[in-house]
């Protein structure tokens, strides 16, 4: 048999190879969920204490990520702000700005994930994992604070807030007590982190 004829047959096979019957994906998920995550939770909404803090923090930070970074990018594109270039030539401002945007976007996204999952899951998960994640995010936050990204005072304020919170989470240890978690979540309230983020979001939305 020639190569050409075999190619013909394989082309035909690509078109005609039977597709599997549609399985019951929901039933299949049942076993996957059971073996991967344990028994199905009875009712997540009822089991968890309603957390306005995590909800509003996640929402505010997500909004911040969308609106704040959009405006931040516009500000970076505007002419002649006083920017600490740290050796970056001005004619490369756009690529540099894009790079900072990318880093900031990733940082905020990952921080949202960490903060929103902290109160409900930190007691059941590895404190070391949370601590390591926070340490990594803290490093990125401090690098951004020292970068041209922090030339925007509103964004700098947000980064400083995140720095404080992440520093606390980074100090979480294995075997942590409920009090340690509560101290962090209380600190979020005491520092008015959520209202300040919301205010920042509102300011940014108004274009102040």
């Amino acid at each position, binding site marked *: 048999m020639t190569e050409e004829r075999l190619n013909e047959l394989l082309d035909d096979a690509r078109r005609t*190879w039977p*597709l599997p019957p549609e399985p019951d994906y929901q039933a299949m998920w049942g076993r996957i969920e059971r073996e991967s*995550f344990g028994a199905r939770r009875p009712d997540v909404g009822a089991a968890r204490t309603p957390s306005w803090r995590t909800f509003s923090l996640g929402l505010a930070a997500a909004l911040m990520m969308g609106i704040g970074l959009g405006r931040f990018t516009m500000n970076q594109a505007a002419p002649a702000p006083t920017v600490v270039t740290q050796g970056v030539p001005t004619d490369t401002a756009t690529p540099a700005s894009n790079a900072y945007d990318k880093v900031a976007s990733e940082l905020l996204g990952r921080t949202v*994930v960490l903060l929103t999952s902290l109160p409900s899951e930190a007691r059941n998960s590895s404190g070391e994992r949370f601590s390591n994640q926070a340490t990594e995010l803290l490093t990125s936050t401090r690098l951004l604070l020292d970068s041209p990204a922090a030339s925007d005072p509103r964004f700098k304020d947000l980064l400083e807030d995140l720095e404080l919170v992440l520093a606390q989470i980074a100090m979480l240890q294995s075997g942590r007590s409920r009090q340690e978690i509560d101290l962090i979540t209380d600190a979020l309230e005491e520092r008015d982190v959520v209202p300040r983020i919301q205010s920042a979001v509102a300011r940014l939305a108004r274009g102040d």
Partner: protein
Amino acid sequence: MTHAALAAEASTVPDERFLIARAQQGDRDAARSLYDAHSRRVHRLVFRLCGDEEMARDLTQDTFIRVFDKLSSFRGESAFATWVHRIAVTVTLNGLRKERRLKRGADDLDVANDLPAPSNNVDPDLRARLRAAIEALPPGSRASVILHDIEGYTHAEIGEMLGIAEGTSKARLFDARSRLRKALAAYANRGE
């Protein structure tokens, strides 16, 4: 957040990093969204590799159990889909070796009756014999043919899935095609 909402949110985000990050922290709704996004393609791939409905269902489940078990090690060096498909291929090949349930011979000829509408110039019997010949290949060679010639993956992608060099994938496919030509030599002129 429900998996539907997560999936909707993920669709507004350029990639799946959000869902993956949530699932890495044990969020089963995020995991379900990832499953919804990838299970059909994985199931089809597994079915084509093993050729058995029941086994395909089991191996698809095994694949996702392995995916969520290993998810913490996923660092995003490759696309998530490629990473999942690599696990699917590994799980399936291991399952085939373990169960030794490759379908052969007369069973495959029976399948010819269930084939979709035939193309213009291929005898249905020859088509069934090609399928039987593919399924009779050693698992690694069979995977190369299925992945490259049927599923359309590149050698680079196959190499990543099977954990082999791109050149090895090409060599395997060359060897597999030689075997197929020999197996079908007697029927070379049918349907032409």
